[in-house]
C-alpha cells in the first residue's frame, strides 16, 4: 500500500480537518463530530442532511452549500456514520420545518440513518428519509436488498437542495427527491481495485488486460469480469443498459453525468462522454446538460460510471437553480 497518509486509522478525521479548513468561509465542523455543516443556513427552510462512508470525495461534504445540502455526516472509510453523529447533523440544521435525510441504499447506511431519525423524532424533530438506488448493475429483487446508491445521488442532492432553498415544505422536498430517484440510473466499471487504508490491500485483483463491469463504489467486485475493450464499446454497453432500464425513447430528455472513480484521467472521461453523447443522439434522446468529472469516487479506483437523469420541466428548473456547493456549482 502506498498512500499519502499518517496513521491509517485516522485518515477520516485528518481529511475532515483539512477539508473544513479549505472551505472555512462556507462550512463549520460541528464540534465533537465529523459533521460538516453550512456556516449560515438559509432562513426558514427544510433541512437537508446526507452522508455516508468517506472515500467517495467530493461526496458528500462537497455538496454542502447554499442550494444543496445543509450538512454532511462523514463516516469512516466506506463505513456508514453512526446514529449519534447523524443526530447531531439533524439537530444542527433543523429550523422547525423538518429535515430530509438522503441515504444511499446500503444496509449500514439505512440502519444508521433510520436509528438517527427515530432519535431525532423522539426529540420532537420531524424527519423524513429517501433512499437512493440508482445502480442498475445489481438486481432489484426480493432476494437482494435492492439496488445500490451511487453517483446518481448527486443529482438527488441537487434537486432536493434547490427545492428546499425555494422554500418548499418537507413533503414537497421529499416528493421532488423521490421523483429524481425514480428517474435516475447509473452503471459503473473499473480497471483497478482500491485499497482501504486500514485494510492495507486491494479489495480484488484484476489482470493487466481485464476490466470489471458493474462495480459498486466500495471496492466490491463487479457483476462481470472480461477482457478490456475500447472506450466506445464500454460506453455503449453501459449506456445501453441504462437506456433499457429507464425505458428511454426518442424525444425524451436527460441530464448526463460521466463520473470518474478516483484515478481516471479526465482525458478518458471526456472520451467516454463523446461516445455517450453520440449514442444518445443516435437514439434521438435530447441531452439537457452534461457533467463530466469526479462526483462520487471510490478512493484510487480507476474507472468510471455513467448516470442518466430523465428530466422534465420541473427537474430542469431545479437543476439550473443556483448552487454554491464547492463540488457542484450552478
Amino acid at each position, binding site marked *: 500500500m502506498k498512500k499519502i497518509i499518517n496513521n491509517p*486509522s485516522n485518515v477520516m478525521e485528518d481529511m475532515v480537518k483539512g477539508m473544513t479548513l479549505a472551505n472555512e468561509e462556507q462550512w463549520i465542523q460541528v464540534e465533537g463530530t465529523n459533521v460538516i455543516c453550512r456556516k449560515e443556513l438559509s432562513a426558514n427552510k427544510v433541512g437537508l442532511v446526507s452522508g455516508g*462512508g468517506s472515500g467517495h470525495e467530493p461526496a458528500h461534504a462537497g455538496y454542502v452549500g447554499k442550494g444543496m445540502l445543509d450538512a454532511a455526516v462523514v*463516516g*469512516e*472509510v*466506506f*463505513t*456508514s*456514520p*453512526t*446514529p*449519534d*453523529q447523524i443526530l447531531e447533523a439533524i439537530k444542527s440544521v433543523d429550523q422547525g420545518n423538518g429535515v430530509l435525510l438522503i441515504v444511499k441504499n*446500503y*444496509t*449500514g447506511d439505512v*440502519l*444508521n440513518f*433510520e*436509528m438517527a431519525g427515530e432519535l431525532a423524532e423522539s426529540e420532537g424533530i420531524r424527519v423524513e428519509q429517501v433512499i437512493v438506488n440508482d445502480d442498475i448493475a*445489481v*438486481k432489484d429483487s426480493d*432476494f*437482494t*436488498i435492492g439496488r*445500490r446508491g451511487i453517483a446518481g445521488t448527486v443529482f438527488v442532492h441537487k434537486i432536493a437542495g434547490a427545492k428546499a432553498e425555494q422554500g418548499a415544505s418537507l413533503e414537497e422536498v421529499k416528493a421532488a427527491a423521490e421523483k429524481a430517484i425514480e428517474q435516475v440510473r447509473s452503471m459503473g466499471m473499473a480497471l483497478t481495485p482500491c485499497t*482501504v487504508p*486500514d*485494510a492495507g490491500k486491494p*479489495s*480484488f485483483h484484476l489482470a493487466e488486460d481485464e476490466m470489471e463491469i458493474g462495480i*459498486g463504489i*466500495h*471496492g*466490491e*467486485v463487479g*457483476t462481470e469480469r472480461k477482457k478490456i475493450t475500447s472506450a466506445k464499446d464500454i460506453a455503449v454497453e453501459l449506456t445501453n443498459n441504462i437506456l433499457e432500464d429507464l425505458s428511454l425513447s426518442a424525444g425524451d430528455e436527460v441530464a448526463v453525468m460521466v463520473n470518474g472513480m478516483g484515478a481516471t484521467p479526465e482525458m478518458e472521461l471526456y472520451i467516454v462522454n463523446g461516445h455517450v453523447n453520440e449514442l444518445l443522439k443516435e437514439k434521438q434522446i435530447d441531452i439537457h446538460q452534461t457533467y463530466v468529472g469526479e462526483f462520487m469516487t471510490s478512493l484510487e479506483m480507476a474507472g468510471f460510471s455513467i448516470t442518466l437523469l430523465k428530466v422534465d420541466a420541473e427537474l430542469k428548473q431545479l437543476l439550473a437553480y443556483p448552487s454554491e456547493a464547492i463540488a457542484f456549482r450552478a
Partner: protein
Amino acid sequence: MLTVQLVQEWMKKTNERMQENKAYLTELDQAIGDSDHGINMSRGFREVVNKLEQSAYDDVSTVLKDVAMTLMSKVGGASGPLYGTAFLKLSTALKGKDIVNKEDLAAGLEAAANGIQHRGKSTTGEKTMVDVWVPVVLWWKGQDEINAEGLEKVAKEAMESTKSMEATKGRASYLQAKSVGHIDPGSTSSYYIFKSLAEVLV
C-alpha cells in the same frame, strides 16, 4: 451466572479476539461484502473496553447498556446498529437483576436475537449473524444448566453453516449464488462473542 466483573471479562476477551482476527474478518468481508468488518469490530470493541475501564458499575444491565451505546456510536456500518441493538435488548431484559442466572440469560439473549432480526428485517437462512444468534438461543433454552463447552460448539457450528448458504440480505445478497462457499463475516464476529461468553460463564 453472569456478574459485572464477568461481563467486563467477556468484553475483554471479545476485544482480544476482534483484534487478533481483524485481518481475517476483513478478508471474509472482502469476499462477499465491503471489506470493513474487521476494522469496524476491532475499533468498536477496543472502545468498549476503554469505556468499561473508565467507569464503575453496580449491575450487569448498566454495563451492558454502555456496551450497547459504545458499539452503536463507534462501529458504524450495518454491524454497529445491529450489535448495538442486541446489547441494548440484553441490557433491558436484565434490568433489576442482581444475579443473572441461566434463565435470565436465555430471556436476554432471546430479546437480543429478536432485536437483531427486527432491526435488520431478517430471519434465519439468509447468511447473516442471525444464523448464529437464533440457533444459539434455541439451544440455550433447551439446556438444564449452563453448559459453556456446548455453547462454544453450537455457535461454531452455526457460524460454519453460513458457508453453504446463499445470501439474501446485506451486501452479499448481490452475489447470489457466488456468495455460497464463504463464511459470513457477521456470523464469525458473533461466534467470537459467544466463544468469549462461554469462557467467562460460571
